[in-house]
């Protein structure tokens, strides 16, 4: 689909990826506007139901971004999230959405550049995969992409 602009939901940890996104802004880094950031207290708070609901509501991709392994503010929230993301990928494969639309990333709050890279990487990946099959090939009617 030409000019397909995916909607990607990013569950970002308050202590790292969310701060990294903030830093990316302060650094005036450019990254694709396809990312919809949801701040969470820790990636360990991300429930598989949240991930599935994002896809059910029409997200084309989802990523969870937490602290580097060993740096979690709550010790093992990012490890829990890693395992849940792995399981949710399997569920998405079973359903027919495709597990490759979901990914887990790690970064520190100082890595604004990394967040921008991850946003670009996921946008690129989802553009190749096309829209969420639940939307029957239709693009999101998000007004921010009205001119694209």
């Amino acid at each position, binding site marked *: 689909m030409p000019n397909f602009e995916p909607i990607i939901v990013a569950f970002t940890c308050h202590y790292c990826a969310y701060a990294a996104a903030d830093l990316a802004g302060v650094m005036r880094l450019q990254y694709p506007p396809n990312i919809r950031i949801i701040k969470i207290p820790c990636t360990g708070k991300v429930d598989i139901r949240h991930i*599935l609901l994002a*896809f*059910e509501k029409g997200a084309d991709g989802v990523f969870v971004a937490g602290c580097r392994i060993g740096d979690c503010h709550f010790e093992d929230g990012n490890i829990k999230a890693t395992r849940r993301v792995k399981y949710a990928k399997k569920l998405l494969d*079973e*359903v027919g959405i495709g597990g490759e639309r979901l990914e887990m990333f790690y970064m520190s709050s100082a890595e604004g550049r990394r967040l921008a890279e991850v946003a670009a990487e996921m946008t690129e990946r989802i553009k190749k995969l096309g829209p969420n099959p*639940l939307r029957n090939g239709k693009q999101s009617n998000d007004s921010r992409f009205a001119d694209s």
Partner: protein
Amino acid sequence: MIIAERKPFEEIKAMVAPYNRILILGCGTCVTVDFSGGEKQVGILASELRMARKLEGRPIETVEFTVQRQCEWEFIDPIADIVKGVDAVLSMACGVGVQAMAERYPDKVILPALNTKFMGMPIEAGVFVERCAGCGNCILALTGGICPIARCSKSLLNGPCGGSQNGKCEVNPDIDCAWHLIYDKLKAQGRLDALLEIMEPKDWRPAGGAGPRKIVREEVRLETLDV
């Protein structure tokens, strides 16, 4: 607790294929604690089914509900109105809960979403092991608190057998030899003489060998007394 595991998604999807509006009913006791059929798992399965069916072009409507226990009338009686409004009920309880629902709601199709596995416990987060076989006549007093019926692959009463090697079972090296554990435990407690007594062949009737089991507790019954 009862340890269960969700059936493969394809199997569940095929079971609910004829229906357009289903109740996915969780159970708030054992299967919540072992992460197979609690409120969260109900939400996950409901979401999966809705998405899969939408992709097939024939959406399914899901009603999600979780009762405290599906194996007691007092918890499943109050959901009669919810059950009435659906084509079928997909129960995420153990086999006991599924049957309780099927008995209470005889006109409704009740389908199992789980495979009930065994009675056991989590030895660490996410790892569940069998600990009791419900044999009906507990011998843990004689075996150092380690059950050879549930934990020995052959349920031997006077073990170990020749397949015990380095404390592991020949059936699978992941399985500890129960009789090795029993020996170590009794030795540590200075009770090895307990092993000198040979256990006689077990009466398997209380284990279910004499048909389905039933216990009647007269002191807790509520029926009118004949006085």
